């Protein structure tokens, strides 16, 4: 194992060791996605029962697909933010930052933990949707992988923004880790097309990678068509988002070193 890979693994091992011993932490990872799936699964079942048409079934599928894919974004973002905050809460950042761990290796470890946390969180909800509501997310086909990747990158970009704010403002910015993505949800067109939004709000929706992914998802589910232009737009926007977030992180990390905030963080 090269030095960089070992350091990334070292930080991931720190989190994995914690999860290995704590079943409440594992339950917490999948609790909310499963609960969301139950609520929206029953809602979709109710709609199908009342409307009794194939249209209702399709609408239900779009609803459940939206729930599951939005959880991918949310869990990816929280996976990075909460792993960083775990270091802060344990007052361990001083030791981490005086080790030879490079800032980009820290970010790589946080992203690795985000993938693991997202998988543990979302997989039970996907299985639940398939077992109880006859909704198979994998029926979207190979394009699902591209949807996942785009939503994860957007989650990571938002998370790096949150970590940057924590580096700048300390524990006062922690609450953003839980709430920030909910603020973007109305503009992300998770459950409805962007065209439903008022005209003045639509430009906001179109700069979010997520809205392009959800438009693409509905294209596959409702029309059986993969809108590659939507995916290309999502990828392009993600490049800008993750690039901007990385610059912000690098800048705030440097500023924290100027202010001496790294040692006192979490106090």
């Amino acid at each position, binding site marked *: 194992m090269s030095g960089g890979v070992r350091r990334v*693994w070292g930080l991931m091992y*720190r989190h994995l060791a914690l999860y290995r011993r704590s079943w409440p932490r594992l339950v917490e990872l999948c609790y909310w996605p499963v609960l969301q799936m139950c609520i929206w699964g029953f809602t979709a079942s109710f709609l199908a029962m009342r409307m009794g048409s194939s249209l209702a079934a399709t609408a239900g599928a779009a609803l459940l697909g939206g729930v599951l894919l939005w959880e991918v974004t949310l869990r990816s973002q929280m996976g990075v933010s909460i792993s960083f905050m775990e270091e802060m809460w*344990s007052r361990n950042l*001083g030791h981490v930052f*005086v080790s030879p761990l490079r800032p980009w290796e820290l970010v790589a470890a946080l992203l690795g933990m985000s993938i693991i946390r997202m998988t543990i969180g979302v997989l039970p909800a996907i299985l639940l949707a398939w077992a109880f509501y006859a909704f198979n997310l994998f029926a979207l086909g190979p394009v699902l992988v591209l949807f996942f990747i785009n939503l994860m990158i957007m989650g990571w970009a938002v998370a790096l923004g949150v970590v940057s704010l924590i580096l700048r403002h300390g524990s006062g910015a922690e609450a953003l880790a839980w709430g920030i993505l909910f603020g973007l949800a109305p503009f992300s067109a998770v459950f409805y097309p962007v065209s439903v939004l008022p005209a003045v709000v639509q430009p906001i929706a179109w700069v979010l990678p997520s809205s392009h992914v959800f438009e693409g998802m509905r294209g596959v589910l409702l029309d059986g068509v993969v809108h590659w232009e939507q995916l290309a737009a999502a990828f392009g926007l993600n490049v800008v988002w993750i690039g901007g977030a990385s610059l912000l992180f690098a800048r705030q990390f440097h500023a924290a070193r100027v202010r001496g905030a790294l040692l006192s963080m979490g106090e």
Partner: protein
Amino acid sequence: MDAIRVEGLTKRYGEVLAVDGISFAAPVGSTIGLLGGNGAGKTTTISMLLGLLLPTSGSIHVLGHDMARDRFAALARMNFSSPYVSLPARLTVAENLRVYGHLYTVPNLERRIAELAADLALEDFIHRPAGQLSAGQKTRVALAKSLINTPDVLLLDEPTASLDPDTGDWVRSWLERYRAQSKCTILLASHNMAEVHRMCTDVLMLKKGRIVDHGTPDALLERYGREDLEEVFLDIARDRRQAVPA
């Protein structure tokens, strides 16, 4: 050769001058004591030496590496211990040492952990969560963490704070043995004057961000006409008495 070389080191926070152009060198194998009252600039200096804090001006070279340009090469051969920076409390001692062993890319890690566990008498609680240990046990674990990479430069911030005299003495003896065996350079910030007198080859007296005096502990005692370093410390802190010129 100097393990640490600091020249004109300054840190300014707005109007506050925390460290004011200090210069010093620590030869390989020496133990340098950093003494000063609260706010004298000890922690700021240590933070800059560790790369946690960027200096406003001046330079730091550790083991020949410029900390402004090449800090990671130096950090791989340094380590740090402070009772004010914790290890993850829910991880066991062995898991904590494994984490830092990976961060410092220590070869034969499990063997190194076993060595440290034997040397520092950690075996009885190596599989217990770090948060459940007594203060003395935590200090030994923190010491094990700081030695995991067999550092050439060790920065210790009050390593025996809140320890009973027996455990404190045990830690000091252990560090003295380690320095003798490894030729490690130690920078020690402490408020325990007996500890500084016993362990340090040279002492830097800091006040308001400046080095106001320095020398071997015995030289300082002689210069101030005192019998212990605590009196010297008070002389400097309270401007009670000037050093007698040699």
